[in-house]
């Protein structure tokens, strides 16, 4: 018995030592399973190789599964975990996690790297909660080969106008996608839908992401905003039950009901939409900028790689808009190694670190003078910065502590309208009432 006890004590002691040794590092919880992870791994490797980084300040990375990442992070932070010192945060969740994180003071170099607007994507109530590592926005993806033929072929042009008149009520002519309004987008989606046009080389004209999911609301918001929709007005009054939101909702509903998007679109999100577009059976798609790399990869998507064009989302009466939000890394308030964590965060905000991150596949929104240095390697980052500056928007109230709940409320109600199980009036009324309650708290 005594031997068993001695062995058990020894094992506990070894585990404790192992744990202490692990806590000597700075542990960073990153965004898993995408280009962000690849970029962070490369950047951390470069950081750890610097002779000036003390052994106790070396960074190690951990990743959760991406499914329900934010809920798991919420539970860990609320439990006061010290298993990671630096954690991921996002524009739409800054307010949610702020009570469990420490604000940080970034070095002056951070202002050389990022514009004030980009730094603001990681701010809550005027305090900085993270280094903005990646910016996300939306592109309109389209098949360049199909659009080129549409713009050149007289038979297709005539058919396009005929279908636009018959199905959309407007005799439109094909245009360059960079000049599109939502009517042009709709007419193109109808033209490239085989059930409406037997000559269409694709099965569907577009693919809409309509699953009851908060991220799908962000994609749809680029449409709603261009029609003038916003969460609140300047006084903070909820304004969703207005013409802007209605026009955006009805556009999706009409396109889905007309069969321009796959039948299961109400269960589609990022991955499903990419798979549809990558199959070559879809002509256009509103999608996150992060999808481009994989879609244009000849090994992963041989059917469409090299035939993809990207422009900013089409214009509505209020102009062109794209939802933007940032992912970033900030300081866990329960960290036991804050000094080392802050050293890493301060370094990460420098131009050199962000250039490394960008070269390794990350998508930071950098100042023009910085992005110029990698424009030849990452031309998409130039477009990212350009579009964010020209068309980027954040809905009023979308960085509040209850922002995620509002996105989820909208997702539930609006998908009900698109599925035909709820009226538009009821959906908007429920959202307006729920938002008023959430923003009041």
């Amino acid at each position, binding site marked *: 018995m005594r031997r068993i006890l001695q062995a058990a004590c020894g094992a506990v002691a070894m585990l404790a030592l192992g744990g202490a040794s692990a806590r000597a590092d700075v542990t960073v919880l990153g965004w898993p399973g995408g280009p962000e992870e690849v970029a962070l791994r490369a950047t951390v490797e470069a950081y750890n190789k610097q002779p000036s980084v003390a052994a106790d300040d070396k960074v190690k990375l951990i990743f959760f599964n991406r*499914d*329900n990442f934010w*809920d798991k992070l*919420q*539970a860990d*932070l*609320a*439990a006061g975990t010290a298993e990671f010192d630096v954690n991921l945060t996002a524009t739409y969740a800054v307010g949610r996690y702020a*009570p469990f994180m420490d604000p940080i003071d970034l070095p002056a170099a951070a202002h050389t790297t990022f514009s004030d607007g980009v730094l603001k994507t990681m701010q809550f109530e005027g305090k900085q909660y993270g280094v903005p590592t990646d910016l996300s926005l939306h592109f309109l993806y389209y098949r360049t080969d199909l659009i080129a033929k549409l713009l050149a072929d007289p038979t297709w042009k005539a058919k396009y106008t005929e279908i636009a008149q018959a199905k959309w009520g407007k005799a439109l002519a094909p245009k360059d996608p960079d000049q599109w309004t939502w009517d042009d987008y709709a007419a193109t989606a109808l033209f490239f839908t085989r059930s409406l046009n037997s000559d269409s080389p694709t099965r569907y004209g577009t693919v809409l992401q*309509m*699953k*009851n*999911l908060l991220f799908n609301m962000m994609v749809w918001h680029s449409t709603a905003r261009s029609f003038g929709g916003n969460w609140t007005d300047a006084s903070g009054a909820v304004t969703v039950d207005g013409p802007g939101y209605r026009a955006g909702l009805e556009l999706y509903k009409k396109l889905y009901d007309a069969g321009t998007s*796959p*039948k*299961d679109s*109400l*269960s589609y999100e990022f991955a*499903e939409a990419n*798979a*549809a577009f*990558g*199959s070559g*059976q879809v002509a256009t798609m509103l999608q996150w900028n992060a999808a481009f790399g994989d879609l244009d990869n000849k090994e992963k998507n041989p059917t469409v790689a090299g035939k993809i064009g990207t422009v900013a989302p089409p214009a509505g009466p209020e102009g062109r808009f794209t939802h933007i939000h940032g992912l970033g890394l900030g300081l866990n308030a329960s960290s036991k190694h804050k000094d080392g964590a802050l050293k890493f965060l301060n370094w990460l905000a420098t131009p050199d670190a962000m250039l490394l991150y960008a070269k390794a596949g990350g998508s930071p929104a950098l100042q023009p003078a910085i992005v110029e240095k990698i424009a030849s390697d990452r031309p998409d980052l130039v477009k990212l910065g350009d579009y964010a500056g020209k068309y980027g928007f954040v809905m009023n109230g979308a960085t509040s502590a209850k922002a*995620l*709940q509002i996105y*989820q409320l909208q997702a*539930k*109600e609006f*998908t*009900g*309208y*698109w*599925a*035909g*199980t*709820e009226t538009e009036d009821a959906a908007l009324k429920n959202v307006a009432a729920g938002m008023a309650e959430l923003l009041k708290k």
Partner: protein
Amino acid sequence: MIAPLTALLVVMLAVPLAVDLVYAVSRVTFETLRAPSVIGFGNFAVVLRDGQFWGAMLFSLRFAVLVTAAELLLALTLAIFLAPLLASIPWLMAPLLLPMMVAPALVGLMYRLVLHEFVGAVPYYFVLLTGDSPSFLGPDTAFWTLVTIETLQWTPFALLILYTAYQSIPTDVREAASLDGTGPLQMLRYVELPLMRPTILAVGFIRFIDSFRVFDNVYTLTGAGAGGDTTTISIYIYEAFFRRDDIGVAVAASMILLAIAFAMLTVVLRWSERRA
């Protein structure tokens, strides 16, 4: 020897239950996990007045009844028809049990792929044979797809137990019935099924409870569904807890569910005792 067991039960069950009881009558969020403010039974009133809660209960009930009935019927049929084959090739049971060994969340993800119109095997063959693929996860079809997937995954569990019960019917009982001129259908109706009834009820009860609180594969396949149409009671509780940060409401809903399950268990046990 009782003390450690009691201590384990206290730590693993009584303490969490006590915390849950406090949360159920408190206003509590992630920020106030350690300092909940007691508000009485308001959370229970919120849950009982919430149409979404009753919608989720109805969905779960309908789902559980259909899945349990389908699994019992399918498993019983397979147990009876495959009995001779399984008796001569016992290892055949191993591949038949494979579906239930896969994590339900993984099953959900797998079917997301299998049913995807552009990369899935099922739609591929539909398009090949008919020129079009039906919707599997649309608003009108998602429920039936979920029922089918749950049934496919868990029928092996019912099969394993029902087959064992079928095999354990004494041979002399069957022989005696045969000597009395009992035909195969009469044998099943009057001899085998009555002897298997306690096992069928136990399997049905376990599967009903399990499918009533289904979460993983529904959540990974459709989430709460368009307009919340595939919100099971477990998804309702999960969303109240994590998504809406209404931890008191989520725990109150869990308590109501616990009370219902306890009442059902009591009824079933009393009924079983009376039958015995």
